[in-house]
């Protein structure tokens, strides 16, 4: 499966490429609005939930330069990232599911991990993003 490799602060993640509808640069989108720290953004009058992994990983946002528009199980959500590195084909068999018992709550933003050659990289669960 094709995965989009992204960076968020010092962390590196991946998301299924076919779940990414757009990679948006907010500086080039005059209709884009998001208050600092808000969990919601608007674009062309449409409201999107924002899943800010900077907050999840407890790192300062520092003005994310890019937003992924991700197709979730029930619509679209935006995920701010610091960089979109590459798209890479990773066999599904190379992706190990994360043990469910390590999570503290019901909401699990990640569901798998694979080796990208530099180390383990987490795979976002697109369906859990909304």
């Amino acid at each position, binding site marked *: 499966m094709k995965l989009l490799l992204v960076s968020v602060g010092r962390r590196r993640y991946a998301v299924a490429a076919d779940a990414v509808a757009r990679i948006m640069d907010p500086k080039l989108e005059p209709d884009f609005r998001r208050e600092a720290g808000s969990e919601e953004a608007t674009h062309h009058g449409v409201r999107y939930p924002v899943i800010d992994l900077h907050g999840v990983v407890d790192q300062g946002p520092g003005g994310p330069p890019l937003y992924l528009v991700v197709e979730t199980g029930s619509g679209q959500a935006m995920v701010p990232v610091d960089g979109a590195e590459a798209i890479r084909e990773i066999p599904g068999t190379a992706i190990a*599911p994360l043990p469910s018992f*390590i999570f503290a709550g019901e909401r699990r933003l990640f569901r*798998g991990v694979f080796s990208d050659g530099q180390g*383990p990289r987490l795979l976002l669960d697109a369906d859990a993003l909304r």
Partner: protein
Amino acid sequence: MTVVVAPFLSFRIGGSRAALPLGLVREVLERPAIVPVPGSHPHVAGVTLRGGVAVPVYDLLRFDPLWPSPRGGPTDEEPEVWSHLIVCGFGEVLAGLLGEQADLIGGASASGTGGSPGPAGMREEFVSGLVRSGADEVALLDPARLFASLGVPAEVARSVMEGEGEEDPAGR
């Protein structure tokens, strides 16, 4: 009462020394790559990949129930305080523990904790006995109590976790 116990693997957790039965230990790794998992329990340091399996890694310094008083484990900004990952098999599940100075200790004598409120600096309920290693007092951890308290389910069949990956792990 003193009993003879099988060989075990000892390791340092902060200022304390602990040990687990060697039969429980699958491998000891030197500084493997570990990725933190946002949303996981505070005592979960992350996961590491072993043979295509995501092995949860536990930092016992952050596991408050183990200590008589909260230790306030290290933060991401502090220097790492571990050098080894001790990969254990608990039931059918693999789980890793961070530690320093991992060392084998042969058959030794273990004694009860004697009602000590904090054997080797740990809560008595997690310690099944004490052994001496040189000048150190080593707490023999109760694996069943420890792993169950960490949230590791012994019943999970490893075949599920060692499956050939998910057909579509991204859920698409």
